[in-house]
């Protein structure tokens, strides 16, 4: 599942849905709104392209690593400290490829998926680069 959404995610449910008998390892990455002196953030995407780009990254991960499942959920909209931003869940037969696949996806996501973040502090606002 690839999703760019206002909704939060439930990692338990997703793990349960994704498990298959050939899966020995699942690695998840969760990005969270960290308190860097901010009050809240706003996430904006070019929705359609963001989904396409995430699908392309997923397909690259499948081609590069012997992994079984990939899910990527990226939230947009108003978020506050402690809120989930992104979930990447990779299932594989063995741990190494699950870790490698998950790291590959988050690195590529940060490089090229059209999602932007604006931070609101008590002194004003700024786009994150």
């Amino acid at each position: 599942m690839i999703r760019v959404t206002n909704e939060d995610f439930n990692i338990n449910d997703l793990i349960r849905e994704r498990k298959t008998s050939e899966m020995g390892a699942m690695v998840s990455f969760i990005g969270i709104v960290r308190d860097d002196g901010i009050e809240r953030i706003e996430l904006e995407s070019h929705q359609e392209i963001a989904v396409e780009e995430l699908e392309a990254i997923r397909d690259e991960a499948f081609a590069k690593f012997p992994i079984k499942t990939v899910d990527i959920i990226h939230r947009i909209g108003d978020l506050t400290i402690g809120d989930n931003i992104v979930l990447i869940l990779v299932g594989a037969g063995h741990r190494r490829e699950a870790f490698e696949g998950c790291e590959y996806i988050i690195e590529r996501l940060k490089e090229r998926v059209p999602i932007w973040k604006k931070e609101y502090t008590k002194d004003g606002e700024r786009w994150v680069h």
Partner: protein
Amino acid sequence: MKITIKAFARFREIFGPEKTEEIAEGSTLAALLDSITAGNQTARTALFEDNGLLRGYVILMKNKKRVNREEIAEIILTDGDEIALYPPVAGG
């Protein structure tokens, strides 16, 4: 001919989220960028260096495909094309 311009994040705040630009048939992408920044210093500074080169971080999409920045002076637009302007991405 009519070209749709979509802008996101910081560029959305400068150019507006979406507008239609009327330019001459056969115009290049470079010409379109000149056109939408003409007479607007903030817009011009957002996209271009002082020397007139496209800023390194600007990402251009033509009909949902990323454009090679070296080719903006050669890319001929056609009626109905959609150009998206992205500042540097910051997801994750």
